[in-house]
């Protein structure tokens, strides 16, 4: 019904999309920026957590302060959320460059697939019909290299498009896809390895 969306006159309730709110923020509208913060702080917080920041609260504040300061630079080529996540990533990279650059063990895709259960005895295959518990997933994510963890958060949890994710990570789309594929297999491998002590030691005790 026309006009219905404008019944409430409170500035915080005026319908506006993120980009509009950010434009208002760039003009000094703190109420508009509050709405942005309320809408996206949990996503930014989760993303920073996935990157392994030491001081989450500090990084969160730094991210939103940087976003406030640079609101006018938002070009609207992607979503405001992906722009915020990109700022969060820069904040993290500046503070933790040493950790990001630390060498990781390289595991081939073949080896990852085998660790994740390709070709294994069906009796030892993970219970595909049983949902994996939240804490199990969180522990598995935490064991992945940071570049794989962040791409899983961006694509699977934040549901950014492939193009947005590639842009945020400064990757080509094919490179982003390749990293995502590896990250998925790695996650499945870590989950299966966590499950293996139960499956292998218990294989003669009722495991079907």
């Amino acid at each position: 019904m026309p006009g219905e969306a404008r019944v409430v006159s409170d500035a915080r309730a005026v319908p506006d999309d993120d980009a509009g709110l950010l434009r208002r923020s760039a003009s000094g509208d703190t109420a508009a920026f509050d709405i942005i913060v309320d809408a996206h702080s949990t996503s930014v917080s989760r993303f920073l957590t996935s990157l392994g920041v030491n001081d989450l609260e500090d990084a969160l504040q730094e991210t939103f302060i940087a976003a406030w300061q640079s609101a006018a630079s938002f070009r609207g080529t992607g979503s405001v959320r992906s722009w915020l996540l990109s700022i969060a990533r820069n904040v993290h990279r500046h503070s933790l460059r040493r950790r990001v650059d630390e060498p990781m063990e390289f595991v081939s895709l073949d080896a990852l697939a085998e660790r994740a259960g390709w070709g294994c005895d069906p009796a030892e295959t993970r219970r595909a019909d049983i949902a994996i518990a939240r804490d199990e997933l969180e522990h598995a994510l935490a064991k992945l290299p940071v570049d794989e963890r962040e791409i899983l958060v961006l694509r699977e949890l934040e549901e950014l498009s492939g193009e947005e994710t590639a842009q945020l990570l400064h990757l080509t789309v094919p490179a982003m896809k390749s990293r995502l594929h590896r990250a998925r297999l790695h996650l499945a491998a870590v989950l299966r390895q966590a499950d293996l002590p139960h499956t292998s030691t218990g294989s003669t005790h009722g495991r079907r």
Partner: protein
Amino acid sequence: MAAADAGLDSIVAGVRCRDVLADLSEFLDGNLSDDRVTTIRAHLTDCDRCARFGGDVAATLASLRSNLRVPPALAQEQSARLRASLRREQAG
């Protein structure tokens, strides 16, 4: 069923398991051409190992999305401190 000793080099329905594995993410995301989807489906129909593995990976991703998609809320005090630090910045 693929020959067990060839591992990922097994060829089933004209496609190597390794190549199906390489395309698995794109297959699950629905990004492959119709022809490629048909080829991979034919492989999966005859290759237990790839079919089971693909199902496991899909189930893992479904669990990830359903369990963790909603980010945990910030603690009230954390939100308040975030807002306070912004206010200081905005006032300056």
